[in-house]
Protein backbone atom coordinates (compact mmCIF):
# COMPACT_ATOMS: atom_id res chain seq x y z
CA UNK A 1 0.00 0.00 0.00
CA UNK A 2 1.43 3.41 -0.91
CA UNK A 3 1.45 6.70 0.95
CA UNK A 4 -2.18 7.71 0.77
CA UNK A 5 -2.75 9.86 3.83
CA UNK A 6 -1.12 12.89 5.40
CA UNK A 7 -0.13 13.10 9.04
CA UNK A 8 1.53 15.81 11.10
CA UNK A 9 4.53 14.69 13.13
CA UNK A 10 6.26 17.16 15.46
CA UNK A 11 4.88 20.01 13.41
CA UNK A 12 5.90 18.57 10.03
CA UNK A 13 3.41 17.29 7.49
CA UNK A 14 4.32 14.01 5.84
CA UNK A 15 2.67 11.47 3.56
CA UNK A 16 1.97 8.16 5.21
CA UNK A 17 0.39 4.75 4.63
CA UNK A 18 -3.25 4.41 5.57
CA UNK A 19 -2.82 1.02 7.22
CA UNK A 20 0.15 1.63 9.52
CA UNK A 21 0.35 1.97 13.30
CA UNK A 22 2.19 4.32 15.65
CA UNK A 23 4.77 1.55 16.18
CA UNK A 24 5.32 1.35 12.40
CA UNK A 25 5.92 5.08 12.23
CA UNK A 26 8.40 5.03 15.14
CA UNK A 27 10.25 2.18 13.46
CA UNK A 28 10.33 4.05 10.16
CA UNK A 29 11.71 7.12 11.96
CA UNK A 30 14.30 4.96 13.78
CA UNK A 31 13.02 5.98 17.22
CA UNK A 32 13.29 3.59 20.15
CA UNK A 33 9.93 3.32 21.85
CA UNK A 34 11.23 2.91 25.40
CA UNK A 35 12.46 6.49 25.74
CA UNK A 36 9.74 8.54 24.14
CA UNK A 37 6.24 9.72 24.83
CA UNK A 38 3.72 9.90 22.00
CA UNK A 39 0.79 12.26 21.99
CA UNK A 40 -1.82 11.56 19.31
CA UNK A 41 -4.31 14.39 18.80
CA UNK A 42 -3.51 15.59 22.34
CA UNK A 43 -4.06 12.14 23.86
CA UNK A 44 -0.98 10.61 25.47
CA UNK A 45 -0.68 7.02 24.31
CA UNK A 46 0.34 4.14 26.50
CA UNK A 47 3.33 2.31 25.03
CA UNK A 48 1.27 -0.87 25.03
CA UNK A 49 -1.04 0.50 22.32
CA UNK A 50 1.66 1.76 19.92
CA UNK A 51 1.28 -1.44 17.89
CA UNK A 52 -2.51 -1.23 17.74
CA UNK A 53 -3.26 2.41 16.97
CA UNK A 54 -3.63 2.84 13.21
CA UNK A 55 -2.94 6.38 12.04
CA UNK A 56 -5.64 8.24 10.16
CA UNK A 57 -5.51 11.10 7.67
CA UNK A 58 -4.91 14.42 9.44
CA UNK A 59 -3.66 12.88 12.70
CA UNK A 60 -1.38 15.10 14.74
CA UNK A 61 1.45 13.37 16.55
CA UNK A 62 3.97 14.71 18.98
CA UNK A 63 6.95 12.52 19.76
CA UNK A 64 8.90 13.73 22.78
CA UNK A 65 11.96 12.60 24.66
CA UNK A 66 14.41 13.82 27.27
CA UNK A 67 17.08 16.40 26.52
CA UNK A 68 19.58 18.27 28.66
CA UNK A 69 18.02 20.77 31.02
CA UNK A 70 18.34 22.28 34.46
CA UNK A 71 15.91 24.72 35.88
CA UNK A 72 14.66 26.49 32.73
Amino acid sequence: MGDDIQIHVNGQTRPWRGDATVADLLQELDIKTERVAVELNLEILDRAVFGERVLKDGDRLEILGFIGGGTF
Partner: protein
Amino acid sequence: MAEDRLIIAGREFKSRLWVGTGKYKDFVETQKAIEASGADVVTVAVRRVNITDRSKDNLLDYIDPKKYTILPNTAGCYTVEDAVRYSRLARAAGVSDLVKLEVLGDEKTLFPDTAGLIEAAKILIKEGFIVLPYTNDDPIVAKKLVDIGCPAVMPLAAPIGSGLGIRNPYNLKIIMETVSVPIIVDAGVGTASDAALAMEYGADAVLMNTAIAGARDPIAMAEAMKCAVHAGRLAYKAGRIPRKLYATASSPIEGML
Protein backbone atom coordinates in the same frame (compact mmCIF):
# COMPACT_ATOMS: atom_id res chain seq x y z
CA MET B 1 28.28 9.76 55.97
CA ALA B 2 26.64 6.50 54.92
CA GLU B 3 23.77 7.05 57.38
CA ASP B 4 23.19 10.67 56.34
CA ARG B 5 20.86 9.87 53.47
CA LEU B 6 18.36 12.20 51.94
CA ILE B 7 14.90 10.62 51.88
CA ILE B 8 12.07 12.03 49.80
CA ALA B 9 8.75 10.23 49.42
CA GLY B 10 10.36 7.02 50.63
CA ARG B 11 13.18 7.24 48.09
CA GLU B 12 16.73 7.35 49.37
CA PHE B 13 19.37 9.54 47.72
CA LYS B 14 23.11 9.34 48.31
CA SER B 15 23.99 12.77 47.04
CA ARG B 16 22.83 16.12 48.37
CA LEU B 17 24.01 17.81 45.21
CA TRP B 18 21.58 17.43 42.31
CA VAL B 19 22.53 18.70 38.89
CA GLY B 20 20.94 19.78 35.64
CA THR B 21 22.09 18.49 32.27
CA GLY B 22 21.66 21.62 30.13
CA LYS B 23 24.12 24.09 28.61
CA TYR B 24 27.09 21.75 28.28
CA LYS B 25 29.36 21.79 25.22
CA ASP B 26 28.49 18.19 24.38
CA PHE B 27 27.29 14.96 25.98
CA VAL B 28 30.81 13.85 26.89
CA GLU B 29 31.33 17.00 28.94
CA THR B 30 27.86 16.53 30.49
CA GLN B 31 28.78 13.00 31.48
CA LYS B 32 32.17 13.94 32.94
CA ALA B 33 30.79 16.89 34.91
CA ILE B 34 27.98 14.81 36.38
CA GLU B 35 30.43 12.08 37.30
CA ALA B 36 32.69 14.66 39.01
CA SER B 37 29.74 16.19 40.89
CA GLY B 38 28.88 12.86 42.50
CA ALA B 39 25.20 13.65 41.97
CA ASP B 40 22.77 10.75 41.77
CA VAL B 41 19.82 12.87 40.66
CA VAL B 42 19.93 14.67 37.33
CA THR B 43 17.26 16.87 35.82
CA VAL B 44 16.22 16.67 32.18
CA ALA B 45 13.81 18.59 29.99
CA VAL B 46 11.09 17.14 27.76
CA ARG B 47 11.20 18.24 24.14
CA ARG B 48 10.28 17.10 20.64
CA VAL B 49 12.48 14.32 19.31
CA ASN B 50 14.48 15.34 16.24
CA ILE B 51 12.76 13.27 13.54
CA THR B 52 14.76 14.56 10.59
CA ASP B 53 18.27 13.85 11.85
CA ARG B 54 18.40 10.56 13.72
CA SER B 55 22.20 10.45 13.70
CA LYS B 56 22.32 12.70 16.75
CA ASP B 57 23.06 11.02 20.07
CA ASN B 58 20.58 10.80 22.89
CA LEU B 59 21.34 12.25 26.33
CA LEU B 60 20.31 9.00 27.98
CA ASP B 61 23.04 7.16 26.05
CA TYR B 62 25.45 9.12 28.26
CA ILE B 63 23.48 9.36 31.50
CA ASP B 64 22.48 5.83 32.44
CA PRO B 65 18.98 5.83 33.97
CA LYS B 66 19.95 2.73 35.95
CA LYS B 67 22.72 4.69 37.66
CA TYR B 68 21.00 8.04 38.07
CA THR B 69 17.54 9.11 39.11
CA ILE B 70 16.24 10.97 36.08
CA LEU B 71 14.16 13.92 37.25
CA PRO B 72 12.17 15.44 34.38
CA ASN B 73 11.25 19.09 34.68
CA THR B 74 8.57 21.25 33.13
CA ALA B 75 11.06 23.95 32.14
CA GLY B 76 9.66 26.53 29.79
CA CYS B 77 6.06 26.11 30.92
CA TYR B 78 4.24 29.34 31.69
CA THR B 79 0.75 27.94 32.24
CA VAL B 80 -0.82 25.32 34.48
CA GLU B 81 -2.07 23.47 31.37
CA ASP B 82 1.41 23.27 29.82
CA ALA B 83 3.07 22.20 33.06
CA VAL B 84 0.50 19.42 33.55
CA ARG B 85 0.81 18.32 29.91
CA TYR B 86 4.62 18.16 30.04
CA SER B 87 4.51 16.30 33.36
CA ARG B 88 2.22 13.66 31.87
CA LEU B 89 4.46 13.36 28.80
CA ALA B 90 7.52 13.00 31.04
CA ARG B 91 5.86 10.19 32.93
CA ALA B 92 4.87 8.51 29.67
CA ALA B 93 8.44 8.77 28.35
CA GLY B 94 10.18 7.82 31.56
CA VAL B 95 10.09 5.31 34.30
CA SER B 96 8.83 7.13 37.36
CA ASP B 97 6.22 9.48 38.79
CA LEU B 98 8.80 12.08 39.81
CA VAL B 99 8.54 15.53 38.32
CA LYS B 100 10.28 18.79 39.04
CA LEU B 101 7.38 21.15 38.57
CA GLU B 102 8.04 24.61 37.19
CA VAL B 103 5.32 27.08 36.29
CA LEU B 104 7.11 30.24 35.28
CA GLY B 105 5.62 33.68 35.63
CA ASP B 106 7.80 35.91 33.53
CA GLU B 107 10.46 35.51 30.84
CA LYS B 108 12.76 38.16 32.21
CA THR B 109 13.05 36.92 35.79
CA LEU B 110 11.89 33.31 35.32
CA PHE B 111 10.39 33.65 38.78
CA PRO B 112 7.79 31.01 39.54
CA ASP B 113 4.09 31.77 39.16
CA THR B 114 3.33 30.42 42.60
CA ALA B 115 -0.46 30.52 42.22
CA GLY B 116 -0.15 28.45 39.03
CA LEU B 117 2.38 26.19 40.70
CA ILE B 118 0.01 25.28 43.53
CA GLU B 119 -2.83 24.67 41.06
CA ALA B 120 -0.70 22.43 38.83
CA ALA B 121 0.73 20.58 41.83
CA LYS B 122 -2.79 19.78 43.08
CA ILE B 123 -3.77 18.26 39.72
CA LEU B 124 -0.58 16.20 39.43
CA ILE B 125 -0.61 14.93 43.01
CA LYS B 126 -4.17 13.71 42.44
CA GLU B 127 -2.83 11.77 39.43
CA GLY B 128 -0.16 10.09 41.55
CA PHE B 129 2.83 12.23 40.67
CA ILE B 130 5.60 12.89 43.17
CA VAL B 131 5.80 16.65 42.74
CA LEU B 132 8.99 18.51 43.60
CA PRO B 133 8.03 22.16 43.09
CA TYR B 134 10.43 24.90 42.01
CA THR B 135 9.19 27.81 44.07
CA ASN B 136 10.00 31.26 45.31
CA ASP B 137 11.74 31.82 48.65
CA ASP B 138 8.32 32.37 50.20
CA PRO B 139 7.56 30.47 53.42
CA ILE B 140 3.78 30.76 53.01
CA VAL B 141 3.84 29.27 49.52
CA ALA B 142 6.21 26.54 50.74
CA LYS B 143 3.73 25.65 53.48
CA LYS B 144 0.84 25.53 51.01
CA LEU B 145 2.81 23.23 48.70
CA VAL B 146 3.54 20.87 51.57
CA ASP B 147 -0.07 21.00 52.77
CA ILE B 148 -1.32 19.80 49.38
CA GLY B 149 1.14 16.90 49.37
CA CYS B 150 4.53 17.92 47.96
CA PRO B 151 7.17 15.72 49.66
CA ALA B 152 9.87 18.40 49.30
CA VAL B 153 10.08 22.04 48.25
CA MET B 154 12.67 23.65 46.01
CA PRO B 155 12.99 27.35 46.75
CA LEU B 156 15.28 29.45 44.59
CA ALA B 157 18.43 31.10 45.92
CA ALA B 158 18.27 33.75 43.18
CA PRO B 159 16.91 33.95 39.60
CA ILE B 160 17.73 30.97 37.39
CA GLY B 161 21.17 31.24 35.83
CA SER B 162 21.93 34.52 37.62
CA GLY B 163 24.75 33.21 39.81
CA LEU B 164 23.82 35.75 42.48
CA GLY B 165 23.90 33.28 45.37
CA ILE B 166 21.41 33.24 48.22
CA ARG B 167 19.57 36.57 48.08
CA ASN B 168 17.38 35.99 51.08
CA PRO B 169 18.93 33.65 53.64
CA TYR B 170 16.40 34.72 56.28
CA ASN B 171 13.46 33.57 54.16
CA LEU B 172 15.22 30.27 53.49
CA LYS B 173 15.69 29.80 57.23
CA ILE B 174 12.04 30.60 57.87
CA ILE B 175 11.04 28.04 55.20
CA MET B 176 13.20 25.46 56.94
CA GLU B 177 11.48 26.20 60.24
CA THR B 178 8.01 26.32 58.68
CA VAL B 179 7.93 23.01 56.85
CA SER B 180 9.25 19.63 57.90
CA VAL B 181 9.91 18.19 54.43
CA PRO B 182 13.34 18.32 52.73
CA ILE B 183 14.32 21.72 51.30
CA ILE B 184 16.29 21.66 48.07
CA VAL B 185 17.74 25.03 47.18
CA ASP B 186 17.29 25.32 43.43
CA ALA B 187 18.69 27.94 41.07
CA GLY B 188 20.86 31.00 41.51
CA VAL B 189 24.01 29.44 42.92
CA GLY B 190 27.12 31.07 41.45
CA THR B 191 30.08 29.37 43.05
CA ALA B 192 31.07 26.79 45.65
CA SER B 193 30.67 29.08 48.68
CA ASP B 194 27.02 29.70 47.74
CA ALA B 195 26.37 25.96 47.81
CA ALA B 196 28.23 25.54 51.10
CA LEU B 197 26.23 28.40 52.64
CA ALA B 198 22.93 26.87 51.54
CA MET B 199 23.89 23.62 53.26
CA GLU B 200 25.18 25.45 56.36
CA TYR B 201 21.82 27.20 56.66
CA GLY B 202 20.26 23.77 56.84
CA ALA B 203 19.16 23.02 53.28
CA ASP B 204 18.81 19.28 52.66
CA ALA B 205 20.21 19.49 49.14
CA VAL B 206 21.18 21.92 46.40
CA LEU B 207 20.26 21.71 42.72
CA MET B 208 22.24 23.60 40.12
CA ASN B 209 23.06 23.65 36.43
CA THR B 210 24.51 26.89 35.11
CA ALA B 211 27.02 27.33 37.95
CA ILE B 212 28.70 24.12 36.77
CA ALA B 213 27.96 24.08 33.03
CA GLY B 214 28.81 27.76 32.61
CA ALA B 215 32.09 27.67 34.54
CA ARG B 216 35.32 27.98 32.54
CA ASP B 217 36.13 24.42 33.58
CA PRO B 218 32.81 22.68 34.26
CA ILE B 219 34.36 19.42 35.41
CA ALA B 220 36.57 21.12 38.02
CA MET B 221 33.60 23.23 39.18
CA ALA B 222 31.49 20.08 39.51
CA GLU B 223 34.06 18.69 41.91
CA ALA B 224 34.23 22.01 43.79
CA MET B 225 30.44 21.90 44.22
CA LYS B 226 30.58 18.33 45.45
CA CYS B 227 33.14 19.33 48.12
CA ALA B 228 31.19 22.48 49.03
CA VAL B 229 27.89 20.65 49.53
CA HIS B 230 29.64 17.99 51.59
CA ALA B 231 31.52 20.58 53.69
CA GLY B 232 28.39 22.66 54.22
CA ARG B 233 26.41 19.64 55.32
CA LEU B 234 29.13 18.55 57.76
CA ALA B 235 29.38 22.06 59.20
CA TYR B 236 25.60 22.26 59.61
CA LYS B 237 25.54 18.96 61.47
CA ALA B 238 28.60 19.86 63.55
CA GLY B 239 26.98 23.13 64.70
CA ARG B 240 28.75 26.44 64.24
CA ILE B 241 29.94 28.61 67.14
CA PRO B 242 27.87 31.66 68.03
CA ARG B 243 28.95 35.00 66.60
CA LYS B 244 30.40 37.46 69.15
CA LEU B 245 31.54 41.03 68.81
CA TYR B 246 34.76 40.68 70.84
CA ALA B 247 37.65 38.25 70.89
CA THR B 248 37.98 35.10 72.96
CA ALA B 249 41.51 33.72 73.32
CA SER B 250 42.11 30.19 72.15
CA SER B 251 45.24 29.67 74.29
CA PRO B 252 45.17 29.46 78.11
CA ILE B 253 46.48 32.27 80.31
CA GLU B 254 47.73 29.72 82.83
CA GLY B 255 51.48 28.96 82.53
CA MET B 256 52.35 32.33 81.04
CA LEU B 257 55.43 34.13 82.40
